[in-house]
């Protein structure tokens, strides 16, 4: 067994994987883990090389586009301690191509695919559950606290959809933001966030939506359990229809 360490950032992990796959003819005999701050480090540290990381990603994209997508969503999950699984997942992907995602009996493949699916599912959910509020200056703001770091693909989705309005997304957990105005999509961070004032007609529109939400349910078929399993309570905080219930 050969042991390697990396710094645990996505670039760090990917560049280490790139190097290992280049150097070792049998990566099955290699393990990779994230460096921890202990006195006794076991293994050889591979320094981060963003070019190497990019290189690996484009190779994967070419050989197994589905696996590259899986990797992208896996990264959004910001999972720690999975560098070794990732190494062996990518090794399998380069060997088998896109059908690798069906190889769920392989432990590393299953680990990565499972995490990746969760991130993809939250992204899909947030495409529906995100709520914008109109601000006094006419722009729209949506706040969220997702489990996964999905602001980038989410903003992209809304840049195709809500093109005619000026909007902001704000991830309160990570203090990251995205904005769209006149065809330009931007990303950044907001350290000091103060909730801006709402437009004067905002409450009126919200009341309409709340009324619709109440009326559309069939009274004899109340099913709070089903509702919560489809729409977990952790998302209710920013749901307009769940305010003041």
């Amino acid at each position, binding site marked *: 067994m050969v042991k390697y360490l990396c710094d645990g950032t996505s670039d760090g992990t990917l560049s280490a994987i790139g190097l290992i796959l280049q150097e070792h003819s049998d990566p099955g005999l290699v393990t990779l883990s994230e460096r921890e701050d202990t006195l006794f480090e076991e293994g050889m540290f591979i320094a981060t090389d963003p070019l190497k990381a990019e290189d690996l990603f484009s190779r994967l994209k070419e050989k197994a586009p589905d696996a590259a997508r899986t990797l992208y969503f896996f990264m959004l999950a910001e999972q720690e301690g999975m560098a070794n699984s990732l190494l062996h997942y990518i090794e399998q992907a380069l060997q*088998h191509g896109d*059908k690798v*995602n*069906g*190889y*769920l*009996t*392989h432990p590393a493949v*299953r680990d990565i695919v499972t995490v990746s699916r969760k991130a993809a599912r939250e992204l*899909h959910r947030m*495409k*529906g*559950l*995100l*709520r*914008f*509020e*109109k601000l006094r200056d006419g722009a*729209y703001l*949506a706040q969220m606290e997702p489990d996964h770091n999905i602001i980038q693909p989410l903003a992209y989705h*809304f840049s*195709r*959809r*809500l*093109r*005619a*309005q000026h909007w902001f997304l704000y991830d309160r957990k990570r203090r990251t933001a995205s904005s769209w105005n006149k065809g330009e999509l931007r990303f950044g961070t907001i350290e000091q966030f103060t909730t801006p004032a709402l437009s*004067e*007609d905002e409450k*009126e*529109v919200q*009341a*309409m*939506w709340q*009324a*619709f*939400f*109440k*009326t*559309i*349910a*069939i009274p*004899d*078929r*109340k*099913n*709070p*359990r*089903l*509702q919560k399993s*489809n*729409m977990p309570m952790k998302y209710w905080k920013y*749901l*307009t*229809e769940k305010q003041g219930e």
Partner: protein
Amino acid sequence: MEVTIFPAMNTLAKLQILSGAARYDASCASSGSRREGAPPGGTGNTSQSGICHSWSDDGRCISLLKLLLSNDCRYDCAYCVNRSSNQVPRASFTAREVVDLTLEFYRRNYIEGLFLSSAVMQSPDQTMERMVRVVETLRVEERFGGYIHLKIIPGSSSELVRKAGFYADRISVNMELPSQASLQRLAPQKEKAAILEPMALIGREIQESLVERKKIRSAPRFAPSGQSTQMIIGASPETDFQILRLSQGLYKKMNLKRVYYSAYVPVSDDNRLPVIASPPLLREHRLYQADWLLRFYGFTAEEILSDDAPHLDESFDPKTAWALRHPEFFPVEINRADYGTLLRVPGIGVTSAKRIVAARRFSLITPEGMKKIGVVVKRAKYFITCSGRPFEQSLHQPAQIRQQLLLGEGSGEVKLPRQLVLPGLYA
């Protein structure tokens, strides 16, 4: 100063009446249409896989702003709350109100788009024209690119039907009742021809537009997300077999995307209607399951039911019921059976069957392997072998299996009602 964009009688009161009247409409799918980006200077696109924006208190997905343009009906269909002889508050939206609600909701990401239906106001044509005006305003003036589902009023002119299909992603004509005889009895002002003719017209137009678009990419689309219909279950005497055969015909001959079933909710004591204590939800649920077998699992109506046994089993889902009648088909060997055969195993759905096929490319699947790839064998275990090994100690008698399945489920306790799953969303 109070600023209001919605004038009095207020749009809020109308919204309550007219969304309440639409709540029994089962269809809420927003999938299957792809309008990539918003039109220039406009708002909205559609998503191939459909997006739920919320789940209402009954657990159903909310995807579209579901409204009637009006509930002020001239007709007197026995099974309907809006029938003219019923004493309920009446309201009608202006086109502008519906347009504004749709846009304001869409901009805040409450919805995927609009689902607009209506009671028959002065005449079918007059009603249909007002509905078409709503979507025309949305598409042309407001450059709205989101999803639109429009109901066709039976009896409206083919000119208006064509216009509707030109602007909407999906259009639908309600079957209402599963036979001509029932229609005559319960909805005497509607004729079967008035329902089937527009259906056939829509089917043809969709087909033609697909062919045209293959030749010229910019050829106009016609209802790109297809056509659906809905019928009421339990207000009339048809058997499940009759209903399924009707659906099968609609899928095959009329190219329908979806048939929705809606359990009859007793709304009047009209003596032409059956007296029931509550809506037949279990029956509706079983019909949806059988319908899935038709659309995704390669079953025919004749395999599921017959003239001798024309009703769906209450204690078992239709696939399990079929399996119990066909012991000769089982056990199915997980490592060898083709995809279509795997789909016939009770408890194995599209996702599981796909995972099995994908995983066995790499190695033989063991019973532990089934767990690893995330296939639940709770129900399937009676019907499969893994590399020749049975899962469950030789329970080969259907009677035994039936017993076991019933026990395992707390004897016939059925979860109800199920969320209507949007096709393509999880597959």
